[in-house]
């Protein structure tokens, strides 16, 4: 059976089903219990599984993220919730120098199967310390996978795959989209990590995106089609590490024009990796336009609504960029 669910509920369903299937799966984090999670993702799971499997923690991210790493080393499958991805600042070590490296440092003797879930992104007036998009950080760390769903369907399938994976996974949830709905099957299903999804087929330009910018890119592609007869292909990467480079190259080989869109600041952002990846192939000889990237302005996220908006990538700027690529401005 298939019905509409929000990303929030799709994530909760994924966790519920995996916790039912596998008793080694459990959840840890701040206020994941009776508070039901700061973003209401864990919801009533504490009532279904008890406080031994949905564990409220003290405000000690290093301790509980590190404890998740240890528990994973010893055979459990923890899911850790970090309320906002920005808080990785206080608990980077268990991820960077422990989870990501233990299998390797041990000469392949010990696995760390765990999922670190974190909400990310701006748009909610949460200002500089609660709005960052830090995926490029995580992607540069060998030893972890980085997953970023943008729809409820993908959220459920990718989270189930992540929980079943044997590697540490950073699972980034676009905070502004938690309530976005799409059709989600009731039964558990997986989506392979490292497979992009073409969310809209097109032939004139490839829009490569992921996470919070997907809805904007889709809207953009409708406008471009309707008003300018430009047929966009929208590629949703869904996971950044592993990266589906074939999907990117195939799309660009077809359209010969590419724009990369993410919410993170552009400089040294993940878009650079995508652009670099294309530019290291012979596709550069075929491109009809230089590769464009659009990300947030290179500043922290300001509080005021109008400033926040003008800092983030906006539909109208994207439109201008794309029209320029077609020499329509």
């Amino acid at each position, binding site marked *: 059976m298939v019905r509409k669910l929000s990303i929030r509920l799709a994530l909760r369903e994924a966790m519920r089903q995996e916790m039912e299937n596998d008793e080694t799966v459990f959840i840890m984090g701040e206020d994941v219990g009776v508070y039901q999670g700061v973003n209401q993702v864990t919801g009533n799971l504490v009532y279904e599984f008890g406080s031994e499997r949905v564990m*409220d923690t003290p405000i000690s991210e290093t301790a509980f993220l590190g404890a998740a790493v240890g528990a994973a080393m010893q055979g459990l499958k923890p899911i850790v919730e970090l309320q906002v991805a920005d808080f990785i600042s206080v608990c980077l070590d268990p991820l960077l120098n422990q989870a990501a490296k233990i299998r390797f440092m041990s000469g392949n003797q010990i696995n760390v199967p765990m999922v670190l879930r974190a909400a990310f992104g701006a748009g909610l*007036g949460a200002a500089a*310390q609660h709005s960052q998009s830090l995926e490029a950080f995580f992607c540069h760390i060998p030893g972890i996978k980085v997953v970023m769903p943008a729809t409820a369907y993908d959220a459920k399938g990718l989270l189930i795959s992540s929980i079943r994976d044997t590697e540490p996974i950073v699972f980034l949830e676009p905070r502004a989209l938690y309530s976005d709905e799409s059709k989600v099957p009731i039964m558990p299903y997986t989506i392979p990590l490292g497979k992009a999804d073409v969310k809209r087929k097109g032939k004139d330009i490839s829009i490569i995106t992921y996470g919070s910018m997907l809805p904007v890119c889709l809207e953009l592609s409708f406008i471009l089609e309707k008003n300018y007869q430009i047929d966009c292909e929208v590629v949703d990467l869904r996971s950044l590490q592993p990266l589906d480079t074939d999907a990117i190259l195939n799309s660009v080989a077809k359209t010969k024009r590419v724009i990369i869109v993410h919410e993170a600041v552009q400089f040294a952002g993940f878009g650079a990796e995508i652009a670099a990846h294309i530019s290291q192939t012979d596709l550069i000889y075929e491109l009809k336009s230089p590769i464009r990237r659009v990300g947030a302005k290179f500043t922290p996220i300001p509080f005021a609504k109008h400033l926040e908006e003008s800092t983030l990538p906006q539909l109208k700027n994207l439109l201008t960029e794309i029209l320029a690529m077609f020499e329509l401005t």
Partner: protein
Amino acid sequence: MSKIKFVEANGDVSFRELDSSVLQDFQLQKKLLYTMKLARAFEEKANELYATGFIHGTLHLGIGQEAAAIGSTAAMALEDKILITHRGHLEAIGKGMSIASMFSELLGKESGASKGYGGSMHMIDPTKGILHANGIVGANAPLSCGIALALKKQKKVAIATCYLGDGAMNEGAYSESLNLASLWKLPVVFATVNNKYGMSTPIHKSHANTDLAQRGIAFNLPTIDIDGNCVLTVCSAMKLAREFALKNQPVILILNTYRISGHSRSDKNRYREDSEILDWKKRCPIKRLENSLLEQKQINQVDIEKIDLKIKNEINSAVQAAQLSELAKEIQW
């Protein structure tokens, strides 16, 4: 009036009387009453503006905690520096931030405390010694050590006060900072607003040892542990703490109080009983001071009405000024 519990670095406990200058200074007490009422009114108005869609973002109110904030800041000099938290409106007002600039900040205006860049969580005013308003729990502690270190190196007669919550005590940054401050003898006070919850988690589910003074002992620091709902106790205790800090003896100050408001606007109060909230509403620190001043015949009902009216006007004109002012400008960085 409660006494001041003083726990020495070696664990010895004594109880001290309140500062007589505080007890006898009714001008001060009236000012404290005014400021607490102003702070309460500020937050109620902010809440209303939020509910009616004027404020973007989130809002952490400290309703019920006014004595802890206003009493402690009242014991400071202008030159003293404070670092406040996500729940920092009250301390900001106590330290002298203008409520007009605070409303402006909430509305994203150019005249805002942080020029519209900070919002509710990050209202900063260096001219009043409000150097940082931190949204990262526990992160004020190391910064405060550095500010105190600088004050000491600069030979200033001033201290740094690090505000933080009970929940923040479990961040590693806090323990590291207690050690550093104690080791380096820094002029810093760790003012811990113990409202018994970190978001939804009650202190007994987050602290293995709820006798908080033991943290101080572990790092050779004295702890002052008081009724944070009695503004006169708070003010006296902060004076004492400040004296120590000025002599380069860092101190932990535990301000025991209660957050009547939810954690933030999205809080559904699923984690506590209504009766508990009701109980603490009865112990309102503002009413408490008001009653004491009434009993001592330092004010009467007419005075109170005057105060309330004055505050209402002050709030309204601050909101109006904020609403009339320009939207925050883009700064070239």
